[in-house]
């Protein structure tokens, strides 16, 4: 049961602790990126994962590969080329001060890829799951084309294809709207993590109902009608009480039934980034391990995301056992001896 994920590795540079950009004399260095985070999280949960991207042929690209190696993610299909690694600067907010992100990722090696240059047939051989997100198609025309080639190859080879819609309004700077690109890619996906607003932006599907829960159900049902190949639709939500106090939950459509996940109250968030990527890893793990128990499956995904909020960096370093333990009610945070 091997998973292949495709996307961009970013270098995340954060002022330490809660210092502001203007105060910082050093940056903490993390590698990040939605698919990268999901890959490492899955590997940490014990699933074999291969990561596919394009990185510059310099010491920074090598540092990113070594980081993936460190967590047992297969890096043999990473190609080398292009000029630079994408960067994002993150200032961690607190209480009423929101976190601040500055993207510096134009002309990254992946954005400048030559479409068709990856040999998907060989990459996907012996794998049963392919994962990507809506971030890669937002980078450049070329990256969008490569994503389409990838999902199509995976779909035709009989893999399960998952996508995290992940709308990034600051990207999409290359002259195409998401609604011109995403529907074609989405035709080859089975499992989707998204939300109402993104589905509206990408597929022009909106709710007529105004009440929150009813509108979720309506959009999810319409999405399934428009894209009948979908097998699992997950819509997550996040209620923001303050920068370090959120509540998260999700709705899950499977087999024509919509269920609601357990809701998690996250008070005292250590690092809010990467929660969705952790949830995605939990979804893939849940579907492949608890296929007969949809409720357990979605609760597992939310519990994984909840644990992520306690870990610095973008990546969820938790084992499946820890997630299950939390699900079984162990949320006291007492020292586990």
């Amino acid at each position, binding site marked *: 049961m091997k998973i292949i994920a495709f996307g961009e590795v970013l270098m995340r540079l954060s002022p330490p602790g809660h210092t502001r*950009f203007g105060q910082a004399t050093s940056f*903490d260095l993390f590698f990040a990126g939605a698919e990268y985070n999901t890959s490492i999280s899955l590997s940490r949960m014990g699933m074999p994962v291969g990561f596919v991207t394009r990185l510059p042929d310099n*010491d920074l690209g090598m*540092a990113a590969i070594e980081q993936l190696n460190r967590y047992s993610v297969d890096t043999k299909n990473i190609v080398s080329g292009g000029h630079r690694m994408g960067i994002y600067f993150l200032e961690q907010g607190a209480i009423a001060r929101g976190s601040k992100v*500055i993207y510096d990722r134009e*002309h990254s090696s992946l954005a400048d890829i030559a479409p068709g240059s990856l040999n998907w047939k060989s990459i996907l051989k012996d794998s049963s799951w392919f994962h990507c997100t809506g971030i890669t198609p937002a980078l450049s025309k070329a990256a969008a084309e490569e994503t389409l080639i990838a999902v199509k190859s995976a779909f035709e080879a009989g893999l399960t294809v998952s996508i995290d819609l992940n709308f990034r309004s600051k990207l999409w700077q290359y002259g195409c709207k998401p609604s011109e690109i995403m529907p074609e890619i989405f035709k080859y996906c089975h499992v989707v993590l998204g939300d109402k607003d993104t589905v509206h932006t990408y597929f022009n599907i909106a709710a007529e109902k105004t009440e929150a829960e009813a509108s979720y159900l309506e959009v999810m049902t319409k999405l399934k009608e428009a894209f009948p190949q979908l097998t699992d639709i997950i819509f997550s939500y996040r209620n923001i009480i303050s920068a370090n106090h959120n509540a998260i939950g999700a709705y899950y459509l499977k087999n024509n039934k919509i269920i609601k996940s357990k809701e998690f109250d996250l008070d005292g968030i250590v690092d809010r980034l990467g929660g969705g990527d952790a949830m995605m890893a939990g979804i893939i793990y849940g579907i492949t391990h608890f296929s007969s128990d949809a409720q357990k499956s979605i609760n597992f995904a939310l519990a994984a995301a909840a644990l992520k909020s306690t870990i610095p960096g973008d990546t969820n370093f938790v084992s499946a056992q820890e997630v299950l333990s939390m699900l079984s009610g162990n949320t006291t945070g007492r020292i586990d001896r």
Partner: protein
Amino acid sequence: MSKKVVTLGEIMLRLSTPDFKRFVQADTFDITYGGGEANVAAALCNYGLEGTFVTKVPDNPIGQSAINHIRRYGVDTQFIARGGDRLGIYFLETGASMRASQVVYDRAGASIADVDASEFDFDKIFENAVWFHTTGITPALSDKAAALTEAALKAAKAKGITTSIDLNYRKKLWSKEKAREVMTRLCQYVDVCIGNEEDADTTLGFKAGDTDVTKGELNLDGFKDVFHQMKEKFGFKFIASSLRESHSASDNGWSALVYDGTDFYHTKQYNVRIVDRVGSGDSFASGLIYGLVTGMPMGEAAEFGVAASALKHTIPGDMNHATLKEVKDLMKGDGSGRVQR
């Protein structure tokens, strides 16, 4: 009133691995900001002159942090334009002993590369200025940045301001051919040219005798020959070069040669053990400029420059924070490094 010197160029975010770590080992990067011309402006302020730095940075907290960094050292930042996409970055892994330092540039698409001369009011910028300094790095960034450099040099000359350029050839930024074409054009507006033999060859096409930089040995006659050719072609008032003998990544011999068209002067040579060599050329340029601006004879100005940059080698970061008194004491021969009480 102290004398005003204007510099123009790029300031970059420098991210370096701490404690001699290799890139693949790093979990943090130390942050500083630097760039040839910004370093010169900061050093001149440090010696008591008025340094004004002109550049363009993105209108975001990273650009603002770069401005704040140089303002801290007293540099006048009022003419800095804001806009464009990003601040250039360079990653530095500091070498030691036989392991050379590694630099990874990530500066394409920087705000200063996407610039127009109309964003700057040179009349105002050069008001009361006595000196203008830039380097061969700025025109290498883009055609727009080259046009800006030319506009600034012309405006300075028109006001009768002394101009200097540090040739600073960067092979990762442009080809030899392009560098020669642009720099030959720019050098007609230059009074004081700073550059080593390699720069003179690559950017201006002056061939020296037989110096091999990888061997780390000096050939003064080769330099003199090149300086003479440069003087003939461009009529520079002064030509200067710092001279590095690389014994290893940690230990270098360091001196300078200067020429006014009549006489050559070779300074004393310092043996420097390197803490941080990035910015040492800029510290020589700023020392030389300080000497010439304050009326020192050529030889003394070169001695000041080389002593200043010998001290820079001991200071982390791109900028020279050695004080005027420290430089003067070193010139007088106190190189003992004993604790000053």
